[in-house]
């Protein structure tokens, strides 16, 4: 499991004077789904394009399957499938022709799985792509990628144009790949997508990878939302260490809602227990919260390091 499929070390990319990637370091291990998350313009696509040898790194190193992404691009690409963020296709070819072409370019054939995928995604392969919507163009790329037999799959914001039904098919297919032991790099700013599928995530912001880890490791950084009602009178916990956004209910006495830093949960529970809790509701943190927090911190200056 510990074999590295992708290894990126202090990767930098300059566009003229603009430093789009300042310091990106992470790795993707064999058999895992790695979520690569960040807001628009963070540098996700730039990182991926560098991995594909479309862009040339300005600093740092990046390897896939232990090979240099720039020097050995063709060797690497034999075992790789990629779906870009915005799929643009030759307008005068049909979807079916392009799917076949993409397979052939990797020396593979249209197979039963391809037909199966075309049916699942409900794509009409006989139409010229000129007439396709963004979602349909994305389906073409997804079908080609999923029916390619590869070791590494890279998806750059793959479901931004898909409806929920197709998004579900996408998620199922990714999980199927994972079960087959394939490695997957999935970039996104849609968090629900990542949450279901990823083993580990990396968060990128303004060209810097700021955090990597498993979901659980990330969760300790987040706050749990608590709603509590007690029999004894509930003190004002506004200033208690680890409690945030404390609000007393207006209509019910001794009821309050607040969020707790996950690592302060024990202390807070000890504090509440003697007050005879009658109702307690806790909502686990979603990545949304985690994400919001990163961005809020962003607005209030760079204080996320202290969490």
């Amino acid at each position, binding site marked *: 499991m510990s074999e590295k499929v992708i290894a990126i070390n202090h990767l930098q990319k300059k566009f003229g004077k603009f430093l789009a990637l300042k310091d990106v370091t992470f790795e993707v291990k064999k058999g895992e789904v790695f979520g690569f998350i960040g807001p628009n313009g963070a540098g996700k696509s730039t990182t991926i394009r560098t991995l594909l040898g479309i862009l*040339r790194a300005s600093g740092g190193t990046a390897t896939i399957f232990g090979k240099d992404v720039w020097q050995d*691009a*063709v060797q690497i690409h034999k075992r790789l499938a990629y779906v870009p963020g915005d799929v643009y296709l*030759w307008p005068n070819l*049909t979807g079916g*022709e392009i799917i076949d*072409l993409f397979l052939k*370019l990797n020396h593979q054939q249209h197979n039963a799985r391809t037909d199966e995928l075309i049916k699942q995604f409900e794509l009409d392969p006989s139409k010229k792509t000129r007439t396709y919507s963004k979602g349909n163009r994305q389906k073409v790329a997804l079908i080609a990628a999923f029916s390619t037999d590869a070791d590494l799959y890279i998806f750059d914001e793959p479901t931004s144009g898909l409806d929920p039904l197709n998004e579900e098919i996408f998620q199922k297919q990714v999980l199927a790949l994972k079960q087959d032991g394939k490695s997957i790099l999935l970039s996104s700013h849609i968090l629900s997508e990542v949450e279901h599928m990823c083993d580990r995530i990396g968060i990128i912001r303004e060209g810097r990878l700021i955090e990597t880890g498993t979901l659980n490791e990330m969760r300790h950084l987040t706050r749990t939302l608590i709603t509590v009602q007690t029999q004894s009178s509930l003190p004002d916990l506004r200033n208690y260490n680890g409690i945030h956004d404390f609000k007393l209910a207006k209509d019910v006495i001794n009821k309050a809602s607040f969020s707790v830093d996950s690592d302060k949960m024990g202390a807070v529970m000890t504090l509440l227990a003697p007050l005879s809790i009658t109702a307690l509701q806790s909502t686990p943190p979603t990545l949304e919260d985690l994400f919001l927090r990163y961005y809020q911190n962003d607005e209030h200056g760079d204080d996320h390091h202290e969490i």
Partner: protein
Amino acid sequence: MKSSNYQQSLFLTRFNLKRDGLLILVWVLVLSLLMSAVAFKFNDLYGTKDAISSIVLTLKTPAMVSLFGAFTAKAPYTTADIFASEMMVFMALFMAIMNIYFAVRNTRGEESNGTVELIAAHAVGKQSPLLAATIELFLINLFMGCLFFLGIQISGMTGMSTIGNLLTGSGLAACGFLFGSSSLFMAQISDNPRGATMLSYLFLGVTYLIRMITDVKNADWTYLSPFGWVEKLSIYDQNNWLPVLFMLSLTTVLLLLTFYANRHRDVGAGLLTTRGGRKRATFLLSGPFTLVMRLDRLSLIAWILGLCVMGISYGSIFGTVGDILKANPMMGSLLGKNALNAASHLIVLKFAALLLIVFAVLATVPSMQTLLRINNDERKGWLEQIHAKAISRNHIFISYVAVALIMGTFTLLAAIFGMWLANAAVMKDPLTLTRLLRGFWGYLPALYVILGIGALLVGWLPKLQAIIWLLPIYGLISLYFGNLMNIPKWAQQITPYGWINQVPVNNVNWTNFGLLLLLALILFIVGFIGYQKRDLLEN
């Protein structure tokens, strides 16, 4: 209801003008400067009686008539008569090309890249984007016409008249707007920009060739071709305004049809709709080369046919062009039959040599377009997924280059073949194919060198690659007018088109052939090195 269809048109027009401002300025300046520069120079060139009468003789030959239009002015001839006769057809052609470009770009082009849909979602009438494009086109032509008028007016050319200058400006503007309107109409018929452009050029090509053939055979019939109407203005001679009326009437009809069609169709749809296609790729689509070939298939066929027809049209007047006796019956008795044949062959060959420059420049257009697609397709995002496949940059680059070379080679060949075909049919003693093919072997390496320069730009200066178009444009103007306007030898030899020594009159210079091919090869390799080292542009 009715007026709401056109809501916000003026706002859109202003917006478009702002967006296209620079492009319009470049076109307008280049064309009007060209026109005025020639007008200024003409007093020097054709200021004397002798110069005028000798050029009139030349302009009356069928070869020149086919290229510049019938010379119809009455004696005594003035400098201005020569000017009008040499410039009108040529400038009208450029006006038509400019109008087709802007018309397609601003209607079907905008529609296919989704801008129209975005705009239509706002409080903008259904006809507004089309009306805005029409107004813009009208304004461009108006502006152009005014500059033509002013440019000639201040040139102080002998024999010109204010009314004639005014007619020149108005006629060219009306002609441009006519072809712009035809193109607006074609944009309703085809549902994609490429199709609309092709249909527009089909119309231009057919009207141009009709004009060419009727001019040589019987100039009265030239009225049949809307393109021929610019000749019928009879500038500085009769100053005939009737053709302007014809142009405006046809323009009105075309515009009415266009607006009718636009109102009755969906955004994105055309009269000729994109049909479905194969569900599976055949073996003809299995790699980068076959892909590029497939993408340019239609263009390849259209250009080969187009140039072949053009070759046939010019070849079909070889008989008239070579007919020395018609111009000078005395010759028959002075020269023997063999000498006569040789003399007439020489005239035809000289004519063919001039035509070959035109063909070589025309063959450059589709092949250069294919070459520039290396970056243009990249910008559109079409290649991104190809790069992620087990396909090297090498392979992609070579595929485009190969198709570009095929494109150039076969279009040039088609033109020469067409010329030979027609010449064999009409001439009593036709030129042989081998003889005419000298033109092919002569110009092919020049074409390759120009494509090589294109490849250099593609590799090293992708953002500026469009400046390569200056080469064919300059090449055409400098060589087409080379002798008529006394353009110095060095200025004619700036582009590789000028490096070729009068084939098919002379033999192919095979040393030159080899050296040019070598040069082309080096240019391609250097261009490729640039392409290999750099970031690929992305959308």
